[in-house]
């Protein structure tokens, strides 16, 4: 088996169509297989590097199946997947995305087909919807902080701590980074959930405004800023990125807020027009199998809905308090956040409170 995977690794030709530009372009990577077992096309927003071990494991399991991996930003992916669904056109056999509200919308519009796999029964009910959409990861929304900058008082452990910190000192002025929720689907989702989860949201954005919060498109940029000290605290950063970065970079620390920690499960569904639904199902089953869980629980820190709670509950803070994990359920309630009128009102409120960043 190891020899086979070696052969496969050699055979997997990366057709990286990396076009110049920061982040807004589509990348197609093809993993050729020696046999003629068909092709599996995955469209995803997840960084390919995170996915490589899973793809290798899959091709070990199905040596004949070639795999094409389309990677794009969530907004672009949503747009092309949505258009393909409307036109009844094939795009991919499996769509995996962290913008779960869009995923729910696509499934709600009838773009998905029944997965019909025994793994559905093992998943908690919040991590699946209609048997068509399933949660694959378990990624908390965390705060990252610069250890050096906050060495004196230690990092905030909850939103209350953060609010207090923002009110008390001018130290955090322009030193807070978070998502630009108008640009980032994930940032909007976390913000929207925050607003419906607790009353701290109002005070939080007021504090953001007062401290001239800096907003960014992506987790990695926020983490970069926190790491080099331009920002002290990054709010609502995707835990998987933060934790794998923190493992490599000891300038930053990760906090799971103890008041509540939102948890996102990247969701995958098999489109109605899938050509190789069987392979897509096998891929989903692999992700949630012991083998897949071992990969996702590893360096990527993506975790799975099955293994995530245990792994995160071990991450107690300095007071020994465990995070209050609040997974965002895959349910049609997420559609509210996508409502045109609702979104417009929410963004207006955001804009009023938060002064646009001056980079």
């Amino acid at each position, binding site marked *: 088996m190891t020899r086979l995977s070696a052969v496969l690794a050699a055979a997997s030709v990366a057709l990286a169509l990396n076009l110049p530009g920061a982040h807004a372009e589509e990348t197609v990577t093809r993993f050729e297989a020696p046999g003629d077992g068909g092709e599996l096309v995955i469209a995803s927003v997840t960084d390919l590097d995170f996915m490589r071990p899973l793809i290798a494991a899959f091709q070990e399991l199905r040596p004949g199946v070639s795999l094409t991996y389309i990677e794009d930003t969530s907004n672009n992916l949503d747009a092309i997947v949505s258009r393909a669904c409307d036109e009844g056109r094939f795009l991919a056999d499996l769509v995996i995305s962290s913008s779960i509200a869009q995923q729910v919308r696509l*499934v*709600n*519009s*009838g773009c998905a087909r029944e997965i019909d796999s025994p793994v559905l029964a093992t998943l908690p*009910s919040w991590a699946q*919807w*209609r*048997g068509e959409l399933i949660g694959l990861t378990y990624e908390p929304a965390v705060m990252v902080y610069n250890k050096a900058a906050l060495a004196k008082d230690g990092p905030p452990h909850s939103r209350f701590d953060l609010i207090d910190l923002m009110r008390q000192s001018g130290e955090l002025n322009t030193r807070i980074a978070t998502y630009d929720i108008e640009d980032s689907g994930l940032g909007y989702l976390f913000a929207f959930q925050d607003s*419906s989860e607790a009353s701290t949201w109002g005070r939080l954005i007021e504090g953001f405004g007062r401290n001239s919060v800096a907003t960014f498109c992506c987790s990695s940029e926020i983490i970069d800023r926190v790491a080099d000290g331009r920002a002290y605290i990054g709010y609502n950063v995707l835990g998987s990125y933060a934790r794998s970065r923190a493992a490599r970079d000891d300038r930053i620390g990760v906090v799971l807020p103890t008041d509540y920690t939102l948890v996102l499960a990247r969701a995958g569904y098999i489109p109605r027009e899938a050509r190789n639904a069987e392979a897509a199902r096998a891929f989903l089953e692999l992700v949630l199998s012991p083998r897949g869980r071992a990969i996702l629980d590893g360096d990527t820190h993506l975790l799975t809905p099955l293994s995530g709670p245990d792994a995160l509950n071990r991450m107690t803070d300095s007071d020994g308090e465990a995070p209050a994990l609040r997974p965002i359920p895959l*349910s*049609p*309630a997420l*559609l*509210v956040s996508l*409502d*045109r*009128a*609702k979104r417009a*009102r929410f963004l207006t409120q955001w804009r009023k409170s938060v002064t646009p960043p001056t980079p």
Partner: protein
Amino acid sequence: MSDAPFGPQAFPSRSIAWRLTLLLTLLLTIAAAATLAAALSYGQTAATRAFDRLLTGAALQIAERISVEDGETVVDIPLSAFGLLSLAAEDRIFYRVIGPDGSTLTGDESFPLPDRAKAQSGSVLYDTTFSGEPVRAIRMQRFLAERAVRGPITVVVAQTLRARSELANEIVARAVIGVVIAGALTLTLALLAMYLALSPLRRIERAILARDPLDLTPLSTTTPREVEALVSAINRFMARLDRRVSAMQDFVADAAHQMRTPITALRAQTELAMEEEDPRKLRALQRRIRDRAIGVSRLTDQLLSHALVTHRADAVTLEWLDLRRVAVEAEREARRTGGAEAVALDLPADPVMVTGDAFSLREAARNLITNALAHGKPPVTLGVRVTAAETAVIAARDCGPGMSPRQIERIGERFARDASNPQSAGLGLAIVAEVAEFHQGAVRAGAAAEGGFEVGIEMPLAPAGPAAPSDKGDAS
């Protein structure tokens, strides 16, 4: 003789248990089908009502959050509305909010509205299809009366039917389980009850099988009323068998006794004759031997006749016959066997119909003739007539002095012969009496109206039978 054809497996399809089982199963199936149909309709109604409330609730919540701000209609979809709809966890949700001018403010612009015919103001629940799936929708209207915006705001909320059909199926499934359990239980209990109810039959069967073949006493097992007729038929049959067996035993005993005496006498006389030297005495002995032989012959004849008549009394079904024909045949037969040349017939012009056994009646008539010839004085007449009391009589008349009252009294006793007459076997009138009894009649003996002495059978006339008496019927 094999008794296989009478075994219980001969006609399994006619088994009472089988019929009852079949009927019960049929009834239960009908009842179950009716229950299930009711459950199906109830399940659907219940599910529809329950989830229609969710839809209504969600629409109300959305409608409530429509307001006018700065001259513009603002729709703030509440999370709780979707939370409510998410109670049907697996269903897709669609919504659409339409402003007074007909433009879609938010939601799915293409979601269909109810038919115009049904589109009254207020709430309308309707079924339609959207995005490739059947959905249940509610259309609710709210009237805005602000300075800037006036008119109806239409809220449409819809949901696919998965949870509804799941609930309906669950209700039906429970009903099915209930019906199946109840049905199985009922059937089991019914079969048990049937087993218990039919146990007397098995008890009777065992009682009959356990019996000694010679034991012909009535069955004494207690029997339920339904099979009493059957058991009493069995008992009647056994009584008849018992009578037959004992009659046969009596006959064998009688015959042995009756035959032994004359044959012993015959032997003695033959031996005497062999030693007799005197031709005159020898001749006298020879005559006596001949008389004895005739007597034995007649005895044999009558014994067999008696046995036959007795047998027929129990075994033969009675038929509709003309007594005149019996007389004619008896006379002809008597003439053929000899000694009856002098018998005359006295028959009425009209048929005399009785129900009876032609053979037995003919034997009786022949014995009447023989009796008259043996004991009375010629001329002998065999007559048939209908009496004033609507009975039929067949009788032999002779011109002799007749029998003494003591003799008349003894008619019917076997071997009540005249000791002085060695030719008489004493069975003739016993046969007649037996036949009379078997035909619900009686032996009549006495002076005849025409003079002379008469012995005969008086028996009931046949009740009005078929219009024209058939001659073929009794031409045996």
